[in-house]
């Protein structure tokens, strides 16, 4: 099977080989330069009423000096009340979740209770893009003071931080089996563990924050493809169902339609299941529809994130393949961020009604129609 020593290559072969190596090196160098900005955090300008900037490593020192460490913006009201955690960027390829959390941090004012906002929950995932998906690296939002650029990252932790993936990911502690790369999916790693892999340690830190700060309500902001069954949805742990149902009635009255979904009992690792099970917090997740995540999309540029318009999705909608209403108007980022903001308000109001002793009173959050009229950019600092 193994031949004897191969013939030494001739001059032309050597020259060709050298050219190939040089070309490959050149391509890699250019690509590396293009990819470098993914390492730099876009600035967030928290509103004046913010009390402090914390870091997730404050809750688990094991994350200090790693790419998992991420900023937490804390807003404290004058009056004592409940505590709420809003997570964006659990999946960095879901821009509406990330941008909603940024917009919240830049506009929020809290009169009663405490609010923690994490815009980049999986910070490592923001530092790369997913091979094969051809996602744009960033998208730009015009504001009155110029354009602000935000990264579109990857659903998974950067393999430079956690690699190799096992063939099968066994979730801890349930033992549930998922595909290998899911081992780098933060929203499959809860409740996490202190001695686990990079992503499990990050999940552990978030769980620790929830426990130490006695968080009453966790909202995890997501997006999904328009062909996916759980879309435009509020997914709630069973203990959070009363709050979610009341909030959904309110949202429906405002003309914003969400599907109310129970967190599946036997699907593990997700925030709404594991945080609800492991801590006293009420855990709720929201989904909006993002074409960039879908497999039916034609366009793959930043414009698709912003306007959500695509001819192939239109064809699919006409063939009845989508789970959301879809027409020529698309599903712009303004709509998706507006939905998340409306959801946050409605859910907080519902919590205040059901648990008045742990009430949280917020102001400064733009309404759904304000976001539609003026665009997301109007609410991003510097104004």
């Amino acid at each position, binding site marked *: 099977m193994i031949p004897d020593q191969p013939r030494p290559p001739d001059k032309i072969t050597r020259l060709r080989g050298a050219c190939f190596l040089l070309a490959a090196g050149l391509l890699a160098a250019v690509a590396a330069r293009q990819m470098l900005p993914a390492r730099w955090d876009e600035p967030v300008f928290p509103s004046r009423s913010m009390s402090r900037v914390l870091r997730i490593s404050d809750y688990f020192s094991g994350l200090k000096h790693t790419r998992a460490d991420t900023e937490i913006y804390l807003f404290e009201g004058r009056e004592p009340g409940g505590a709420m955690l809003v997570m964006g960027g659990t999946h960095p390829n879901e821009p509406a979740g990330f941008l909603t959390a940024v917009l919240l941090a830049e506009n929020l004012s809290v009169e009663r209770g405490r609010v923690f906002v994490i815009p980049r929950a999986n910070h490592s995932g923001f530092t790369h893009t997913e091979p094969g998906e051809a996602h744009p690296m960033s998208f730009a939002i015009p504001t009155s003071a110029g354009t602000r650029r935000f990264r579109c990252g990857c659903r998974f932790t950067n393999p430079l931080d956690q690699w190799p993936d096992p063939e099968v990911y066994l979730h801890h502690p349930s033992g549930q089996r998922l595909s290998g790369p899911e081992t780098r999916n933060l929203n499959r790693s809860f409740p996490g563990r202190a001695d686990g892999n990079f992503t499990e340690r990050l999940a552990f830190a978030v769980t620790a924050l929830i426990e130490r700060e006695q968080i009453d309500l966790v909202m995890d902001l997501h997006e999904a493809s328009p062909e996916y069954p759980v879309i435009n949805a509020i997914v709630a742990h069973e203990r959070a*169902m009363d709050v979610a149902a009341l909030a959904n009635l309110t949202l429906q009255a405002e003309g914003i339609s969400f599907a*109310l979904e129970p967190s599946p009992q036997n699907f593990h690792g997700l925030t709404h299941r594991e945080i609800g099970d492991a801590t006293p917090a009420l855990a709720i997740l929201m989904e909006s529809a993002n074409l960039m995540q879908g497999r039916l999309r034609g366009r793959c540029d930043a414009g698709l994130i912003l306007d959500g318009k695509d001819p192939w999705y239109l064809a699919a909608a006409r063939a009845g393949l989508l789970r959301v209403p879809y027409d020529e108007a698309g599903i712009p980022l303004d709509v998706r961020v507006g939905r998340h903001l409306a959801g946050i308000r409605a859910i907080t109001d519902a919590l205040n009604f059901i648990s008045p002793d742990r009430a949280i009173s917020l102001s400064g959050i733009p309404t759904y129609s304000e976001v539609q009229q003026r665009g997301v950019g109007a609410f991003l600092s510097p104004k």
Partner: protein
Amino acid sequence: MKTLVMVLSLLFAWAAVAEERPFAEPILLTSCGQSADVLMMKTLLARDSLSFEFLPSATAENLPNMGSLLIVLGGSSKGLGAAKISEADEIARVTALTAAAEAAGIPILAAHIGGLNRRGPLSDPFNRLGAEQSSRLVVVKGGDDDGFFAKIAAEKSIPLDTLNTALDVAPLLAEIYHEYPSAEAEKQE
């Protein structure tokens, strides 16, 4: 917050009206398709003085002493294969339950309150079953844009109410329940 105040005042107003009128109480509240919309209905009912029993998987055995059956239509979609309910089992349960209700002369109200989110291949088998077996049908806009329920209602001569939002279900229910004497009142007679 404004909307919530409006929602709650509507609910309380309905509750006040409800107290004065006889209803076919108690109501057996169940699901057809196991969507979480039944919990929204529970929230609507829980804020009023009507007595109801909430059993998402109610069977014929739960029917005795009930004044009416309220079934909320729509399938659940979270985590295919995760929230595993067998479609066949659910259809068999609801078929048996509605047949028993009909035999016992218990009126059936079917409500579809989830809008477009509760239509499509996951939900429609349940929507059809519940709607066809009902004595009266309530649908929130968006769920009947294609006339799915209107057609069933016309074919089976079922009274159909189309409402703007799930909140409008509350005053309508007050009206509907007024048409039937309460089960307890019937027994006293």
